[in-house]
């Protein structure tokens, strides 16, 4: 199978009040056709910026792509002039209330996408909008298009955002923490909706979340990021059965287990490091429970083990 998207050694540099930092810093991964990849990491790991770079939305005033390539169907997105945003690649953001225009009716906002990209008239576009909204489980879409975002409930707003992203049948849908702002029951509904999308359409999904248990529900493969770097890439089941990287292991064990009560939780000591002055060598070594001498001196490369990749000195020489 050919990769639909291939991110190679991506580096984005930011300048914030004199300080320079990179996140992501040399990130590589691939998304196959018809595949759902989960991108997991804590805040500051560079997962959202990776998504923005793929979308061509890195804010020009502060950041720029300083290295690497993003290949989408063979084209380098970092150099492309007419961008594929909206038609081939689209994105769903975390908080729908911040990304919808409060002064515009939902129908108007959604049909605008089709008017812009395909030059459709409003009358034609709204038919398609209603159809997509219906597919995504918005009740009475004919009436709902005449309403404003504030008249929608939280879950419906997120459905409308997903409808907007799916209007042009994109090849790749990027969802950046699409369920974080929602209640658990609504989160479960939206996850179901993504599963349905994955099964019914030929769209590949890049699902970004800090919550491994959410990702485990829909992703085929998981990319774990820490402090601007990828630390592990693995099929989803395997990562939960046996995490390779100590960070992944820590993340999984800090998920509260429903079966155990009142025990001390396992946690990762310390805090996420500042990217302005990142630790030398492996970026996780100050918090790692299994660190060795080499970890603080030299950054590990990727070691492969079966169909998994891990960036940790513990696996040097394994699988060669």
């Amino acid at each position: 199978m050919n990769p639909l998207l291939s991110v190679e050694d991506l580096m984005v540099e930011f300048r914030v009040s004199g300080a320079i930092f990179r996140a992501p810093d040399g990130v590589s991964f691939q998304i196959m056709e018809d595949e759902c990849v989960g991108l997991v990491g804590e805040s500051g790991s560079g997962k959202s910026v990776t998504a923005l770079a793929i979308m061509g939305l890195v804010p020009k005033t502060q950041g720029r792509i300083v290295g690497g390539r993003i290949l989408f169907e063979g084209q380098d997105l970092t150099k492309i002039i007419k961008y594929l945003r909206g038609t081939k690649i689209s994105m769903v953001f975390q908080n729908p209330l911040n990304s919808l225009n409060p002064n515009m009716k939902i129908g108007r906002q959604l049909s605008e996408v089709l008017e812009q990209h395909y030059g459709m008239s409003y009358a034609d576009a709204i038919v398609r909008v209603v159809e997509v909204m219906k597919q995504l489980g918005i009740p009475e879409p004919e009436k709902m298009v005449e309403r404003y975002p504030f008249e929608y409930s939280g879950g419906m707003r997120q459905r409308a955002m997903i409808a907007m992203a799916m209007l042009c049948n994109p090849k790749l849908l990027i969802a950046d923490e699409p369920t974080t702002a929602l209640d658990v029951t609504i989160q479960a509904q939206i996850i179901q909706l993504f599963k349905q999308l994955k099964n019914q359409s030929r769209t590949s999904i890049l699902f970004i979340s800090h919550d491994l248990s959410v990702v485990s529900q829909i992703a085929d493969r998981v990319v774990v990021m820490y402090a601007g770097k990828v630390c592990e890439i693995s099929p989803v089941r395997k990562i939960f059965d046996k995490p390779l990287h100590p960070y992944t292991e820590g993340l999984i064990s800090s998920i509260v287990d429903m079966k155990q009560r009142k025990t001390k939780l396992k946690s990762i000591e310390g805090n996420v490091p500042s990217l302005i002055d990142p630790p030398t060598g492996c970026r996780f070594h100050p918090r790692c429970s299994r660190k060795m001498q080499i970890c603080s001196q030299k950054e590990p490369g990727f070691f492969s083990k079966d169909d998994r990749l891990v960036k940790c000195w513990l696996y040097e020489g394994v699988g060669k």
Partner: protein
Amino acid sequence: MLLKVENLCKDFPVEFNVFGKPIRFLRAVQEVSFEVEQGSVFSIVGESGSGKSTIARVLSGIYKPSSGRILYRDEPLENRKRSFDIQMIFQDPDSSLDPRKTVAFIVEEGLHIHGIKDRRERKELVLETIKSVGLTEDVLKKFPHQLSGGQKQRVAIARSLVLKPRLLILDEPTSALDVSVQAQILNLLMEIREIHQLTYILITHDLKIVNHLSDQIMVMYLGQVMEMGETEQVMQDPLHPYTKGLLASVPKVDSDNLSKFSMTGEISSPLNPPKGCVFRTRCPLAFDKCQERPPLIVHRNRKVRCHLYG
């Protein structure tokens, strides 16, 4: 009994007539009664709009109840002036810590307000508390923006703890934190509870945390209690369809559990709640009788508001 709440109601006016008199109310909390035992962890769960945070704010004295009684150690809560005993920890330390004040000031301020005059005593207490929440002395001179999310939440905990409270109200204490830090803060909360013999009221939508920490659970929907009982019992064998739905929505890593999910729709507006049972519009088991409001009945050692068990 440390805290006893009887028939607590809280209404918010939403519409006024020309003379400024409220004519329409939003009923955020309706006839809620519960008891919290000394040394236990009592948790209140529900979706946003269920009234759980309103209860927290009434208990901590931010809101006045519209009706009902709150007895703290057998004394009405409103009789107590400036109480040290009940303290609250908020969800997001970014918005609950003053960005212009140093950590030392933030933690010390409560002592000042509560009348500890001796400066040296205050300083000592602050230092002791800061250490007990796992921070070092050097954070005292820092401002909140210089700290990480976990450290900020530790400062928020220290600020409450310095007053030596008996009852801590935790309003979503970890939901603004990163996963790896969440576990640290939960461990800390369990630790200080044991050391200081605290009682917790935990408000959260995260059932995993509730299951881990709490002794008693109260499930709320649209301002009303749906189910209440021992956490372990409720988690293992939920009675109310809403509790069942909530539990089914928790994503778990070891199984594909969400496909069995059966709760549809969203919480109704509290301005216009359904007649009869408030949950009936989303309930997969709703039947004719649900048009009437079910009473809160005792069934198998717990309280449940559902006609199925009538």
